[in-house]
């Protein structure tokens, strides 16, 4: 086979490759533009040759691409960009009406240096890969995983954190406390005589009551506070950077709001109260379980003391 034939074949292959090839000189003027680029841009090689890339495609982030290209020129080193950085460097539209998955083509780009006879980098070649399908499925997977993660830690009825995830948060906060030494207070509370609500109005009414309490709770929380449904009618809240007196203020406001609340279910007006136990994290508390146990003990005290009240551990 002659060298001429081989050369001709190579050109033919490059022209038909389903990957974009663009050669630029130091002034970013287009020197080579293969079939892939022609077909996706609608501009033929003869139309673009010798033209400034950024003048032809004002959509290309000029400063960004030049910065990458400069290091290739300067260091004679390859550079890679991925779609997570710039999804669509060349503004190519999706061309498949049926199996296309995005409006624009996602691209990964490799920039390689091309050296002249003297060994200097005189040109660069951009190799443009269509990674639309990969990008779209990765994004879909990521969002599905996020949704799964959210579902796996949410309580269905109240849309608060479920017990498992809430306890993880308590552990994390406990550890953070040990490092930072800031004050946080744990509040455990439950609905007084909840069994009677269930017996008298039925379980659906009981659920409505639990949902109503959750709503009141959520409205009273700050962004940093962590609330969860601990058990049937029992709830837990970690108040971050809050000492016991401030937490008591929060608890009392919550208690009074619930006391004033009427839940209507099947035309029946239901009124109820809650009891709350508070425990500020103290140095001698050994682990998160003891912290929860202290708040539980204060809650028990509130029950013993006649319900519809807040008690602080150790007071």
């Amino acid at each position, binding site marked *: 086979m002659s060298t001429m034939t081989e050369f001709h074949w190579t050109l033919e292959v490059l022209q038909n490759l389903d990957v974009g090839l663009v050669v630029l000189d130091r002034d970013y003027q287009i020197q080579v533009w293969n079939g892939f680029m022609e077909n996706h841009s609608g501009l033929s090689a003869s139309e673009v040759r010798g033209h400034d890339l950024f003048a032809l495609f004002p959509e290309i982030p000029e400063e960004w691409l030049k910065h*990458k290209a400069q*290091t290739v020129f300067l260091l004679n080193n390859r550079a*890679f*960009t*991925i779609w997570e*950085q710039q999804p669509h460097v060349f503004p190519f539209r999706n061309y498949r009406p049926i199996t296309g998955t995005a409006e624009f083509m996602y691209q*990964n780009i*490799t920039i390689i240096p091309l050296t002249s006879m003297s060994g200097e980098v005189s040109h660069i070649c951009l190799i443009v890969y269509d990674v639309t399908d990969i990008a779209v499925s990765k994004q879909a997977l990521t969002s599905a995983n996020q949704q799964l993660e959210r579902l796996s830690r949410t309580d269905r009825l109240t849309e608060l954190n479920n017990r498992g995830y809430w306890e993880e948060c308590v552990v994390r906060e406990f550890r953070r406390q040990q490092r930072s030494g800031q004050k946080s207070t744990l509040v455990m509370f439950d609905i007084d005589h909840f069994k009677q609500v269930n017996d008298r109005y039925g379980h659906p009414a009981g659920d409505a009551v639990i949902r109503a309490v959750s709503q009141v709770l959520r409205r009273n929380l700050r962004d940093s506070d962590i609330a969860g449904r601990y058990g049937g009618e029992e709830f837990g809240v970690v108040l971050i950077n809050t000492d016991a007196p401030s937490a008591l203020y929060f608890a009392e406001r919550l208690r009074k709001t619930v006391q004033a609340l009427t839940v209507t279910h099947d035309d029946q007006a239901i009124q109820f109260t809650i009891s709350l136990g508070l425990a500020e994290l103290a140095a001698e508390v050994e682990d998160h379980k003891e912290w929860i146990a202290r708040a539980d003990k204060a809650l028990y005290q509130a029950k013993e003391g006649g319900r519809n009240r807040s008690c602080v551990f150790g007071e």
Partner: protein
Amino acid sequence: MPTRLVICDDSGMARKQIARALPPQWDLHVEFAADGREALELVRAGRVDVLLLDLTMPVMDGYETLQAFKAEGLAPKVIVVSGDVQPNARKRVLELGALDFLKKPLDPAQLEQALTRLGVNAAPVPEVRRDLALQVDFRDCYREVANVAMGQAADLLARLLDVFVILPVPNVNMLEAGELQMALKSTEDYDTISAVCQGYIGSGIAGEALLIFNDASFKDIARLMNFHGKLDATAELELLMDTANILIGACLKGIADQLDIRFSQGHPTVLGRHCKVSDLLAANAGRWRETLAIEINYRIEDYNINCDLLLLFTADSIQTFNGKIAHLLDAA
């Protein structure tokens, strides 16, 4: 009277290569030292006319050795032979009293010119092979190949950013699967993205580079890269990719050039973005075996930037790699 010449380098392979690069018909008496401390002893004993000195060495590095000569009023003729080819490395050693600076891999013609400039006696004697007695193990060879490659990467970074990169002695190890897991897991604990992976393959040698930023201080990286915009997740990704392109690309090129091969590089993957480390661990944990790893810790002077570059080679590559290295050692 032959010229008494000492080759000081921690790498057996480098000592062998330098010895081989000496003009074969010159009247030289050659001794070897494995670190600066040994070279200093020989100089103190008055046994050295010319010292060929490496920079990156354990115990006492090249800079410390030059400082010790100065402090003790010793004045052997020193030519630094180093893989650390940053402009600043050259400047610093010349200021410390070295008379010349040659880069690795050493070019015999340049060495001969440098020796001539120092006025070394070139009286012809029968040709000798000076490297025959030296035994070298493979780990040492890998370390030296990595040493030269990382020096080239550091040089690019130094010239691009006008900084000085502090280079350690590279680590060459068989890495246990568990150690790789630990390294990956450590990247998961950061809030910010801090690791980039990139596969490479060529001439029967393949593997993956893993660049891990320790306590990624993007503020410092941004300062370094002259980035003035808002430092959000997008900007951090850009900075990470720019640094990875240089460090991984240049280091691989440095290795490939020495072995006389070329690597193709795949597209980089940023860990923690659309590729979760925990998923990688779950999917691959059973597949990982003990693997050859070259580990290089880069630090940048005056900046809080510290990153580990791990080059992990596939088990299939090791035989080919050894063959290439053996070839390097035997090349006349």
